[in-house]
């Protein structure tokens, strides 16, 4: 039996949780409710008049081809980012798990990209791939390939995917490495004695045994690609060329602060909020329980 700690009906516990509650209210609940309220309004570009329109903003969005395009683009973008960063992280962790000497240095270096702010990460990639100054277009030129992500939408998409994935590799790497190091050594040794070579051991033993981590990272990466990549896109392509890299978060910003359609932008952010809630729900409901293998 747990003993129940008893505070004699004082206000102390309320005072202790108050700072957290205040922060949550001011920075999360209040802006979120404002967004929900605003999504029911239509405002003119100068902010002189507003009209309460119920769900008209949402109706408009779902009929808007640009928005649906952006939705599909976002799905593709996050799938690509998640796949790329997770597979790279998996490979790196697989090797790091086998490193004997200098393991700490290796790990530390691999974690660095995570500490880089998204905008800076984007800036790095912009420089590296700048069609006139960048080192990669220079090399690609030798191969006869013309790189210009300011004109070519597919190249622009590839670039933001790479930049976003690169930044997330470190995070995924950490989780994969931890998961791999939690596998008892003797299981891998048993595999070796059973005749499995390293690559086969990786696919038949290590990969299935880290599958709970894979599920977890899948959600985390999807959330990251959906919501945290604004800085990278803003720095690298600003959604262009011709909206080819305008994912949902960028469209919220673009329609709201550039297009000054505050109501429509708020409606989009309400939809995004709903998506976060769904993904968080999936994570808690299915993945936390799915540690079984």
């Amino acid at each position, binding site marked *: 039996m747990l003993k129940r700690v008893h505070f004699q009906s004082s206000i102390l516990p309320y005072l202790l949780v108050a700072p957290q509650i205040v922060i949550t209210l001011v920075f999360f609940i209040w802006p979120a409710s404002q967004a929900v309220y605003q999504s029911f309004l239509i405002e003119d570009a100068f902010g002189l008049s507003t009209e309460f329109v119920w769900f008209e903003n949402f109706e408009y969005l779902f009929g808007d081809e640009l928005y649906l395009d952006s939705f599909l683009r976002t799905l593709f973008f996050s799938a690509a980012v998640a796949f790329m960063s997770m597979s790279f992280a998996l490979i790196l962790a697989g090797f790091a798990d086998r490193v004997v000497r200098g393991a700490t240095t290796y790990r530390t270096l691999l974690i660095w990209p995570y500490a880089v702010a998204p905008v800076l990460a984007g800036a790095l990639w912009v420089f590296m791939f700048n069609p006139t100054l960048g080192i990669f277009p220079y090399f690609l030129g030798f191969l006869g390939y013309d790189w210009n992500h300011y004109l070519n939408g597919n190249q622009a998409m590839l670039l933001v995917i790479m930049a976003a994935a690169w930044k997330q590799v470190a995070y995924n790497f950490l989780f994969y490495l931890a998961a791999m190091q939690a596998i008892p050594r*003797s*299981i891998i040794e*048993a*595999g*070796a004695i*059973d*005749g*499995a070579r390293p690559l086969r051991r990786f696919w038949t033993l290590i990969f299935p045994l880290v599958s709970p981590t894979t599920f977890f990272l899948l959600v985390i990466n999807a959330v990251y690609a959906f919501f945290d990549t604004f800085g990278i896109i803003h720095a690298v392509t600003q959604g262009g060329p011709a909206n080819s890299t305008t994912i949902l978060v960028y469209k919220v910003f673009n329609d709201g602060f550039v297009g000054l359609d505050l109501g429509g932008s708020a409606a989009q952010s309400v939809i995004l909020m709903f998506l976060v809630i769904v993904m968080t729900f999936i994570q808690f409901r299915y993945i936390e329980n799915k540690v079984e*293998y």
Partner: protein
Amino acid sequence: MASIVLKDLVKNYGKVEVLHKVTGQFEDGEFIVIVGPSGCGKSTLLRMVAGLETVSGGEIYIGDKLVNDLEPADRDIAMVFQNYALYPHMSVRENMAYGLKIRKLSKVEINKRVDEAADILEIKDYLDRKPRQLSGGQRQRVAMGRAIVRDPQVFLFDEPLSNLDAKLRVQMRLEIRKLQRRLGVTSIYVTHDQVEAMTLGDRLMVLNGGYVEQFGTPIDLYDRPASVFVAGFIGSPAMNFLKAKTIGGNVELSNGTRLKTNTKLDLDLTLGIRPEHLVADPNGVIELETEMFEQLGATTLVHGRLAGSGEQLVASMPGHVAQEPGSIMKFGANADALHMFDAASGKRLEQ
């Protein structure tokens, strides 16, 4: 089936040498037990034979093949781990079939072998379960099953019974012995439990601090231990050791008691007497000042000190014995039950 030869085997971790020129020849079909206290290097030795640890010096042969630089996969061995090391995401059947699939055996052949092994080990009913749904003893069987389906040249056991409860351990010990006899596969078994070692092994290799103290049959080790270490390690309760010196063919204990022997030696020595070789005798010269009686039912262990010297002494007497602590009991010992060891080096001295 194959013999195993270890030649001057050395293992270093950095500058620390943990195994010092271990040499031994294990015959085809033999059950070898490597026994020693924690940290003596016995698991390291086994893992070197398995190919899980690199060899720093010396040679290992399995059959006639030098295997020093071979991957575990190429050594044709199977190993049972202390924690069983079953693949947690696979069913029992898949666990046992894993090594066979890698060898690209046909499905029919794989199923046949798995079913056979499951029959032998009586795990037929669990073939579709996952390891976590099994008890410790069942997991142990699966681990053995995984080893025997492969039909390897050598079995390696790394303290496989240490995670089981006492009763199950005795039962599994017998089963392992029977199974090994039946299959006739050369086996190396590592344990720190001397009873396990004595009952299982055709021959025992006693390791201490990375050195081989003695290598021989269990009875050899019991009757003629090569050193104080082996003498104290093999046999339960452990052998008594008393300070002594030789005087004119007799042995004089530290309290002045003289024991008749035919020794021609003349030096300080450590005298070893097993508790079960101390025979209660009213005319006996060894006087034991009793401190405590341990009743084991069939036997009674009398703990005490050698009268007049304070050296610890244990005697094992048949049946129930109980006296006042502090009383003096007299014991005699046969001359051939006395083991003499050099006081300085601890090595056995022949009379």
